[in-house]
């Protein structure tokens, strides 16, 4: 397959791309028919060979997660699509949801068949009202065309799908909080184990996967595991959606092979720095991922290489900042976000995000004290690894990354009792 050929964003330039007729005309729903003619166990084996890893941020091998849920004898099983795209900087799932909804529906129908799950829900963030209308219209069309329902494609397979709209809580992107939320509760994460693959939504085996992950299923059926595994990085193959924002010439969503270098994403695909300004720093995977300074962007964007480069792939949300940006202010804004979104369930996160924000705010406002940098490091150190879910780790990691690479900027703020950027 030509690496430049688009699959996840195929056909989205067509203004009617969300319509089922256009999707079918472009070859859509053929892969569902192909899948339904095969044994689900075979397809799961093929999925394993494809090497697909979850695109939500953790990069867990999809087939492994699915085999746990499939092995659990309890029924019914549920398939939940995580469309709570809330990680700041992230807007990669949005073109699928708004322009290519049938790709997701086809992917979910195939996934339901593999898993033996007869009910699926798309947990859609409340901030995407347009996507809600588009998805509901697409689901209605898919029912009419018999790609969803009690007898999908006349093959005696049942798969029902509905949209569940969230209401503005970042934490609901965490899978157990998402499950709590769909059950009509506050979105507070659950203790693990038991894992959702065994005890998930309504206490039944549940698979939660990101929009982009599930949208890869039709491609794997289409070209087979071997060809799929040849796209992008060897250890985590496939196409990847990268969304680039900030001070670049061409911000936007790009479908590129997994493992494309961060440098190429910025300078080739996103057209380089806006107005010829100087690159200062990059947040490579959404604001929960540690910042990288300008001289550290020669790294492959995938789940294996990024931790070695000192950050994470996260959601593939690349925020590019030029030298007009104050890193203390970015850290402060990020912590204001984490403090607001902390669910309050565990003390290190609830108190830690509050304190980190307070100290960062006073440094940014010129009221920083000697010892504040050590205080920040201390608080972040107490949080790391001790919070209930990754939200607290993310918040602590952001502060540690900023201090590691831009310590002098923090010192300047404290020494001069002001921010030199504002």
């Amino acid at each position: 397959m030509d690496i430049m050929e688009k699959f996840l964003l195929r056909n989205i330039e067509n203004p009617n791309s969300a319509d089922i007729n256009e999707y079918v005309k472009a070859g859509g729903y053929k892969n569902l028919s192909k899948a339904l003619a095969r044994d689900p166990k075979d397809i799961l084996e093929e999925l394993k060979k494809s090497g697909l890893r979850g695109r939500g941020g953790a990069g867990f091998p999809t087939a492994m997660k699915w085999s746990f849920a499939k092995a659990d004898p309890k029924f019914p099983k549920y398939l939940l699509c995580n469309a709570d795209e809330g990680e700041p900087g992230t807007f990669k799932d949005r073109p699928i949801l708004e322009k290519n909804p049938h790709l997701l529906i086809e992917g979910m129908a195939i996934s339901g068949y593999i898993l033996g799950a007869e009910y699926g829900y798309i947990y859609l963030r409340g901030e995407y009202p347009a996507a809600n209308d588009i998805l509901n219209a697409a689901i209605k069309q898919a029912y009419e065309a018999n790609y969803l329902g009690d007898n999908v494609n006349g093959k005696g397979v049942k798969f029902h799908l509905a949209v569940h709209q969230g209401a503005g809580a970042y934490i609901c992107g965490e899978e157990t909080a998402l499950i709590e939320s769909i059950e009509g509760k506050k979105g507070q994460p659950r203790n693990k184990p038991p894992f959702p693959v065994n005890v998930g939504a309504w206490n039944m085996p549940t698979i939660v996967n990101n929009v982009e992950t599930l949208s890869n299923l039709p491609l794997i059926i289409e070209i087979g595991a071997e060809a799929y595994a040849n796209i992008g990085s060897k250890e985590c193959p496939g196409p990847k959606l990268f969304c680039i924002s900030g001070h670049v010439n061409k911000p936007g969503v790009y479908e590129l092979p997994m493992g494309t270098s961060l440098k190429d994403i910025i300078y080739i695909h996103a057209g380089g720095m806006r107005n010829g300004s100087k690159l200062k720093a990059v947040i490579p995977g959404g604001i929960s991922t540690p910042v990288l300074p300008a001289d550290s962007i020669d790294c492959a964007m995938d789940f294996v290489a990024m931790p070695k480069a000192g950050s994470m792939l996260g959601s593939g949300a690349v925020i590019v900042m030029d030298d007009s940006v104050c890193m203390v202010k970015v850290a402060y804004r990020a912590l204001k976000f984490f403090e607001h979104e902390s669910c309050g369930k565990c003390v290190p996160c609830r108190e830690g995000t509050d304190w980190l924000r307070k100290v960062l705010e006073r440094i940014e406002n010129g009221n920083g004290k000697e010892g504040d940098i050590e205080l920040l490091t201390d608080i972040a150190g107490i949080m790391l690894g001790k919070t209930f879910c990754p939200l607290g780790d993310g918040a602590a990691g952001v502060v540690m990354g900023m201090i590691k690479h831009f310590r002098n900027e923090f010192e300047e703020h404290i020494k001069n009792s002001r921010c030199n950027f504002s």
Partner: protein
Amino acid sequence: MFNETVLKEIDEIKAKYPDRKSALLPSLYVAQREFGWLSHEAMECVSKALNVPEAHVRGTASFYAMYKHRPVGRNLIQLCTNVSCMILGAEKLVDFLGTRYGVQPNGTSQDSRFSLVIMECIGACGTAPAMLVNTDFYDNLSEKRIEEILEKYK
């Protein structure tokens, strides 16, 4: 109490889930649409329609940012100021909304024309800064563009 049409709508929502409690989030949206915000009465109606304790309804509603916990103006502006929007000038737009329309974050203008809520990322980072006005989405914002957009919201 909700009228028959609304109760029917809530029954349809309930049918999508294996238990009635799961219909809570969508039903709160319905109540918000019917009452304009989640008043005590609105939440009582949800509690009765779903047969879920009122304390649970109120507790859950309080967790989520997109439910309106107080009356709002005729038009709700939800502006993002998270990092991608911030580095492209979103904070200046907050100030502009204050001076031009008299609306502050979490407040309502005196003429009740606009309420303003600061959002945490609305997924439009590539075309930042961005906002929602009611359920309409706008991006690539500038002071001039905001003036043009808000012209049609009376």
